[in-house]
């Protein structure tokens, strides 16, 4: 099991066509950090100490850390059974569940949270109105901890689901068969053989979930929960003080580094379990028997809350207002812009992620590891902070590039790079490096090897990476508002404008279109899962 790469190749032998794009990405990663340090330096020492020692700041730090941990924990509780059910059991309508349990990725968290509040809010919500005849005037409050954990978990668990499902399919069934034949019960085999092998997938997916919960703005603000993003935004809004906001964001970077360090520690040990590519045999199917109903109820509850509910509420708003007229033409134009911007981002960012993934897997060195690790920082920062850092550098040093489409795509690169790096990395880990070495020894140049051997083998990773980028870029708001060319309206900016204006029909139309546009790429991701029995 596992191949000890270390010492086989060194970073100095890495080809230039990998190093150059990786250098661009490294600069992209450094820009927001440089900006935050510059701005924080503008805060007086005394003021900085007051800010950092304020009970509220400490509370925000703890809130955010606990929220990230809780959301990751609950996502595992949802994703692990779902992955197991959809890959390894005779669950009825398995293909249907496969698709619906992945779809929440396409629901923007602000739309999802809004629908949860409309349904379960303490007063005036759907459920409360239904229970009102029974004398229920107020439901237990959804705001704060319960709401924020429920909403973020429901709309981010698919990151874990995708990663665990891929892990489950990559496990060599021979190992489990051996355990069974040595007298282990199915339960014991699962906990002692299967689960440990899933560690890398759980950790990789869990990292994305944890960081996404920290970067999300829509849910904490709707659920009135003081996480970093909400407090940083309030700092801009309440005192128009960029420096204090930057100091808070730098504190968040501290939390991000802590999480990344923890993940690195766990991952280095878990790397032992990386699988070799073997001849695939059909996985063993577990017969659910009487448990079938419980499994179905579980799938139905999760999909009901995370897909059916947002879809239903959106449709309700849309139909309620449909009498007012046809969709304004600019919704269609916005849909086109959204698909164009997010599509361009998906292609470009995947191209830049590939070199980082290859370098970190095939040419490990402290430098490549650091670049790979640090690419996650942009993903964990609030969009508005990253956007303002690029406003600063763009307007003052690259005015010809400022507020153009390439600039926007660059902003998406800073924000979303690790999603593609992660996907390509796990694909690459399953490719035997001896294949590449054989190509080299047969006289292929590094470039030819990349093109003819590596690329075709990591195709699933490339595809799912680019689709993840597409799905998150299409929902992105703050950077799009500040850095897109003037007049470049996307579905996200239109939904925002409509909600600001309390025009729910327009917001619903935008959300529904966004769901439709996002559904296509989600299907592509699913089709890339290389299971043999579906």
């Amino acid at each position, binding site marked *: 099991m596992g191949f000890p790469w270390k010492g086989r190749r060194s970073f100095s032998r890495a080809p230039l066509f990998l190093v150059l794009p990786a250098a661009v990405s490294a600069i992209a990663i450094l820009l927001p950090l440089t900006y935050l340090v510059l701005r924080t330096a503008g805060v007086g020492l005394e003021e900085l100490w007051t800010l950092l020692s304020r009970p509220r700041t400490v509370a925000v730090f703890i809130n955010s850390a606990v929220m990230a941990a809780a959301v990751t924990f609950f996502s595992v509780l949802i994703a692990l059974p779902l992955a197991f059910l959809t890959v390894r059991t005779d669950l009825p309508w398995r293909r249907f569940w496969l698709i619906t349990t992945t779809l929440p990725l396409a629901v923007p968290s602000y739309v999802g949270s809004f629908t949860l509040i409309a349904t379960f809010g303490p007063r005036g919500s759907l459920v409360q109105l239904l229970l009102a005849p029974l004398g229920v005037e107020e439901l237990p409050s959804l705001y704060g901890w319960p709401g924020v954990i429920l909403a973020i978990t429901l709309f981010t668990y698919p990151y874990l689901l995708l990663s665990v499902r891929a892990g489950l399919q990559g496990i060599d069934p021979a190992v489990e068969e051996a355990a069974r034949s040595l007298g282990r019960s199915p339960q014991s085999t699962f906990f002692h053989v299967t689960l440990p092998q899933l560690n890398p997938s759980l950790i990789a997916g869990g990292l994305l979930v944890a960081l996404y919960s920290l970067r999300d703005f829509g849910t904490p603000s709707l659920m009135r929960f003081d996480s970093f993003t909400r407090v940083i935004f309030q700092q801009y809004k309440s005192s*128009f003080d*960029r420096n204090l906001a930057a100091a808070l964001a730098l504190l968040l970077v501290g939390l991000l580094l802590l999480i990344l360090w923890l993940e690195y520690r766990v991952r280095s040990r878990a790397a032992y379990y990386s699988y070799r590519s073997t001849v695939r045999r059909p996985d063993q199917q577990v017969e659910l028997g009487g448990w079938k109903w419980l499994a179905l109820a579980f799938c139905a509850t999760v999909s009901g809350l995370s897909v059916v509910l947002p879809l239903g509420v959106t449709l309700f708003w849309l139909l309620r207002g449909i009498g007012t007229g046809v969709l304004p033409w600019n919704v269609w134009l916005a849909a086109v812009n959204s698909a164009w911007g997010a599509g361009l981002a998906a292609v470009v960012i995947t191209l830049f992620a590939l070199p980082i993934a290859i370098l970190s897997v095939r040419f490990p060195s402290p430098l490549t590891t650091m670049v790979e690790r640090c690419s996650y920082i942009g993903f964990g920062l609030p969009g508005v902070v990253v956007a303002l850092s690029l406003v600063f550098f763009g307007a003052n040093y690259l005015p010809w590039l400022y507020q153009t489409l390439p600039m926007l795509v660059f902003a998406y690169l800073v924000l979303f790079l690790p999603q593609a790096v992660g996907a390509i990395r796990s694909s690459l880990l399953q490719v035997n490096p001896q294949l590449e070495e054989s190509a080299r020894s047969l006289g292929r140049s590094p470039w030819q090897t990349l093109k003819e051997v590596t690329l075709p083998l990591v195709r699933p990773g490339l595809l799912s990476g680019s689709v993840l980028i597409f799905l998150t870029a299409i929902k992105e708001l703050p950077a799009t508002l500040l850095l897109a060319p*003037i007049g470049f309206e996307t579905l996200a900016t239109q939904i925002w404008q409509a909600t600001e204006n309390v025009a729910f029909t327009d917001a619903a139309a935008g959300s529904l279109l966004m769901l439709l*546009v996002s559904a*296509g790429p989600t299907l592509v991701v699913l089709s890339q899962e290389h299971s043999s029995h579906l």
Partner: protein
Amino acid sequence: MKWKKSLFLLGLAAVTSYFAIACTGNSSSNTSPTTTPTTAASETTELVVYSGRNQSLVGPVIQKFENQTGTNVQVRYGDTAELAATIQEEGKNSPADVFFAQDAGALGALQKVGQSAKLPQALLNKVDAQYRSPQGEWIGVTGRVRAVDYNTTLVKPAELPQSIFAFTEPKWKDKIGWAPTNGSFQAFVTALRVSQGESKAKQWLEGIQANNPKVFPNNVSIVEALSRGEIAVGFVNHYYLEEFKQEDPKIPVAHYYTGDVGSLVNVAGVAILNSAPHRQLAEQFVTFMLGEEAQKYYATETLEYPLVSGISPASGLKPLDQIKQPKIELSNLNDLSGTLQLLQESGIL
């Protein structure tokens, strides 16, 4: 396997069609929506506006300005606070000429860092000194008034008190609706703190909280609840009811102004940037926004109060000079952090 393949093909077909549409749609969108000549030759006829006000509110007025002057106005819409931060980050290199803000606090912030320019006195004179910067670097365009809206079948006008503080009395228990997360409500609380002091502001918040008010996500839902009689009174901005009246003139809800800080007037206004690349056009733009046509548009379409003297508000609205209110410098209403803290301490947020 077959199923996977069709799934893939379906998804791929969808994705490629987006790209196909996007490529064709994008090239045409570059040419079609702009009615004015190409940007390259228009150095002198292009104006860049950063607008924290919604497109549906100000878009039509800006269109009018474009049509009348032949100017191509490029508008970046966004959140007022984020745009203020953006202008500060851009510094001297800001492409923006004009900042159109939702509230005076953001305009005051730009003035504080020295990024706004002094407006011509002739323009400043059009608006009452109360609704513009004392230094003359920003000017209010429209006003919105905090009002106590009440259900006319549940409450008689004579029962309504002379002060916002009276709503803490027990007789208003279970009858009040408010929206504590709303920006205008929070601006009112800031004004309460600035004009009456922290402890009185806290007293008021806790007093209302003790009356078990219904919490709403926004002003619209307060007016809706008022019309259904779910609550008797609600703290709102004046124009929401006006919008409802346009759909249903017989709606059983009316405005009441307490005549103290409870009827605070806040403004949306404009500033010209110090670094404005098109200074003259920018002044022309501000002049237009304070002109009769634009002011009348705001009065009748967005139902805000026009701030230029001589233009009357929408019919049925009490004229601004008849609404009593304390003297408060609006750009001082930028200490929102203290307000949020107070709201949290009182257990409201």
